[in-house]
Structure formats: structure tokens, C-alpha cells
């Protein structure tokens, strides 16, 4: 009689499966890289020209935000994968495998995050170089911060994939969630320039927290608050919980439109 595989082994198998899809998806990798470079060298460069009267270097500010928004956007892909698996009937098979749905969510969320990290590591190194930051430990610390963010975003994306049954609505909702998480944050503009009514919300956004922490590491004159680390960790815990809960509901059945 064979022994039951350990939880760590199961999580590793799930992560490995998602990494395999990374290797099989060169188009997405190329596309996101080109998108990032265009954001940085076209959009940020030209907006910095227009915003020349600001008292800070907008290009440096934006460069960090571009990495954070890129990993956010990549982490959302895991939900699209799950939705596609559900649409094709593959998710039912995956959920029938002999491990709990919490492990499934953890494995898929970590898989999405690791995938995102592999995508953005070269981008983070490029930004560190452009911003004149050369500490290997600091870059590694920044990668850890965005990995935590990506894990939470993956959980959020999985939750949406499990909640929404209509393909058109899912497409639009994922785009909306991605837009809202990045735009209602300090990733691409300082909080002080945002509409006052949104500033409290953006202050406690995990994307703001991740951007602020990385800026505090890379850029002189920037600081992050201790509560921002708490926000990041809470975000991950909440969406692990919700992702698991909705997967459980999926196990209990439901109509796919």
C-alpha cells in the first residue's frame, strides 16, 4: 500500500505544472516584456517630459510601479487558466485528485506567483540598473516583496474565476479587477495627486504597499510604513481563504454558463 504524498510535494507538483505552462507560453512572455519596455521607454519617458515641473523624478517613480503593475497583471493570468480549465471540463478532473482544495488553491496561487516572478526578475534588474541601485540583497528583497503581492493577486484571480460563470463577464471582470488594483494605488502616480475620495482606499491597497516598499529599497528619499507589510500579508491570507471557499462551492456543484 503506497503512502500518502506530503502536502509540500503536492504543492510542488501544482507549481511545477503551472511552470510548464510558462514554458509552453512564449507569446505571453514576449508580449509582457515588450509591453513593459514600451511602458517604460515610451509612456514613462514622454509623461516625464510633460510632467517636467514636478519636484521629483517621475521616470524613477514610474519604473518601480511598472514592475509592480506588470507582476500584478501576470498574476491575474492564473485565474484565466483556471477559468479555461473549468470551461473545458478539466477543472472537475483536477478537483477529483486526492488532495484538499486548500492545497489546490495554495499550489495554484504559488504557481501563479512563481511564474510571475520568473517573468519580472529581468525587469526588476533592469529597473534597479536604471535607478542606479546595485545591491544584490536589496534586489532579492524587492523580488520577495513582489512575490508576496503576486501570491495574493493569484488568490484574488482564482476567487474571481470560481465566482463568475459567464465567459464574457469573466473577461471583463478580470480586466476591471486588474485596472482597479493597479490604478487605485500608488503604482503609477503618487497618492497625493489622486482624487481625495480614493486616497484612503489606495493607501491600504496591497499594490501601494508593494510599490512603496520597493521604492524605499531602490530610491533615495522614499520610505515605507510598517503597516504596509501587514497589508500585504493580510491580502494574501484573505484571498487564500476566499479562493478555497469558492473552490469548495465548486466541488459542491454549480451551473457553468
Amino acid at each position: 500500500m503506497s503512502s500518502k504524498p506530503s502536502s509540500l510535494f503536492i504543492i510542488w507538483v501544482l507549481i511545477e505544472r503551472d511552470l510548464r505552462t510558462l514554458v509552453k507560453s512564449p507569446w505571453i512572455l514576449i508580449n509582457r516584456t515588450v509591453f513593459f519596455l514600451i511602458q517604460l521607454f515610451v509612456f514613462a519617458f514622454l509623461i516625464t517630459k510633460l510632467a517636467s515641473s514636478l519636484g521629483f523624478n517621475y521616470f524613477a517613480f514610474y519604473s518601480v510601479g511598472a514592475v509592480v503593475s506588470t507582476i500584478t497583471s501576470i498574476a491575474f493570468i492564473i485565474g484565466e487558466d483556471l477559468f479555461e480549465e473549468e470551461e473545458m471540463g478539466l477543472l472537475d478532473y483536477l478537483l477529483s485528485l486526492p488532495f484538499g482544495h486548500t492545497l489546490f488553491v495554495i499550489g495554484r496561487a504559488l504557481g501563479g506567483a512563481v511564474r510571475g516572478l520568473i517573468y519580472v526578475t529581468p525587469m526588476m534588474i533592469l529597473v534597479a540598473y536604471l535607478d542606479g541601485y546595485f545591491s544584490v540583497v536589496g534586489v532579492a528583497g524587492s523580488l520577495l516583496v513582489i512575490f508576496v503581492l503576486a501570491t495574493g493577486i493569484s488568490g484574488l484571480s482564482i476567487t474571481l474565476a470560481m465566482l463568475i460563470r459567464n465567459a464574457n463577464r469573466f473577461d471583463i471582470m478580470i480586466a476591471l479587477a486588474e485596472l482597479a488594483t493597479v490604478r487605485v494605488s500608488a503604482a503609477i502616480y503618487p497618492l497625493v495627486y489622486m482624487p481625495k475620495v480614493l486616497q484612503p482606499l489606495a493607501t491600504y491597497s496591497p499594490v501601494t504597499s508593494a510599490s512603496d516598499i520597493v521604492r524605499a529599497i531602490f530610491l533615495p528619499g522614499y520610505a515605507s510604513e510598517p503597516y504596509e507589510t501587514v497589508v500585504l500579508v493580510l491580502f494574501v491570507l484573505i484571498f487564500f481563504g476566499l479562493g478555497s471557499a469558492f473552490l469548495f462551492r465548486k466541488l459542491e456543484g454549480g451551473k457553468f454558463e
Partner: protein
Amino acid sequence: MSKASAVMERDFRIFFADKYMLMIMFANFMIDLGVSGLSLGAMIRNLGFSYFLYIAPGANLITATVASFQSGRDVWRERVIQDTQQYLLTLPVRKNVFALSRLFSGMLRTVLTVLPGTVVIAVLYGLSFQYFLVGLGIMFIYSGAVAGLSVAAASLANSLELFATVRSTVQVYLSFFSTQFYPSSILPPEVAAVSAFNPMTWAVQSFRALQAGTVDLALLAPLGGLSAALLAVGFLMYRRTMNY
């Protein structure tokens, strides 16, 4: 005509099967305009004009891009995921009529989707009712370009990955290689050259001209030309998938 309208009605039913779709699309537009637009507008104040108003029509055109791309998404799903294209082609509608109706319905769906956003821009710009209708016309013509591109992509892509890649590449091209965010005078020559072949450039400039009180045919003509060309590409690619 009744067959064409039946095809279009089906597309409308698919698109609006979700009763919250219009609200979600409007929320998308409001985030673009009310968050990013206002924030960037507050940051950029030294241009001698309101940067917020300058980029406002772009937010609506981005929503139009998302809505128009759903035409390709429908075609792609029927062809690759649902495998219903062969069945649809057995219906008593000529293939040319079927393909054209799909593209046309995509354009109409887009106009309906961006109607609330266009009202918001018209109010911000203080447009008369006639100019508001011209604004809707601009959205209609622009959506033809994106619908054509999306259906062409859907006809070529056999995986979701490739289709999603083309979709985001088109969105990046439309947004960042156009005058949506920056005046053409500050564009590097290479970007300026590319932006001349971008329907977003002509659509957003046409909309800005309305604020100045003109319907600029010199801007509308290239927009119409590009849209017609891209619609033709979409039509031909879609038709090619119908031949066995």
C-alpha cells in the same frame, strides 16, 4: 436583411447575456477617467490646457477597444472552444452576409457600450447634441477598426494564449503609440510615424476637435480609411476560416 438582423440580434444576446455588462464596462471607463485621468491631470499642469480634458476621450476609446475586441472573442470561442462555427455555417445565411453581420454587430454593440461614456465626455466638453452624435459616429468608425483587427486575430489564433497576446499587443499599440496621452509634437520621429497608422490617433484627435467646435474631415478621413482597411482584413480572414 432579416437574416443579417437575426445574426446581429444573436450577437447582441450573447454580449448582453450578462445584465451587468454595461455597468462593468462603464466602471472600467470611470476608473480610467476618474482615477488615472484625474491623477495624471493633477500631476501635469504646465501645458497651458487641461491635461485631464485632453486625455478624457482616450478613456472612452479604450472602453470601445475592449468592447470591440469581444467580437473577435466570440468568433474565436465558436471556432476553437465551442466548435459551433460549422453548425453556424449550415444556417440559411450567405457566408458573406454572416461575416459582415458579425463585424457590423460588433460595431453597434460597441457604440451601445460606450454610450454612457460618450455622454460623460460630451458633458465635460460642453458639446451640442449634434456634436454628441458626431462623437458617437467617431466611436462607431473607430470600433470598426478594432472589430476588424479582433476578428482577424480570432481567425488566425488557435490558442487562447495567442489570441490574448494579440489582444494585449493591439491595446498597447493603440494606447501608447498614438496621441492618446501625449501631443504629437513631443513624440520621437519613429513613434510619430507609427502613430499616423493608428486609428486611436485619428479618433482621439477628431474627438478633441469637437471640443474646439469643429468636425475636422481631415482627421475623420484617415480614421475612416484605416477602419475600412482593417474591417476588410477582418472580413477576409474570417471568410477564409469558412472555406473547407
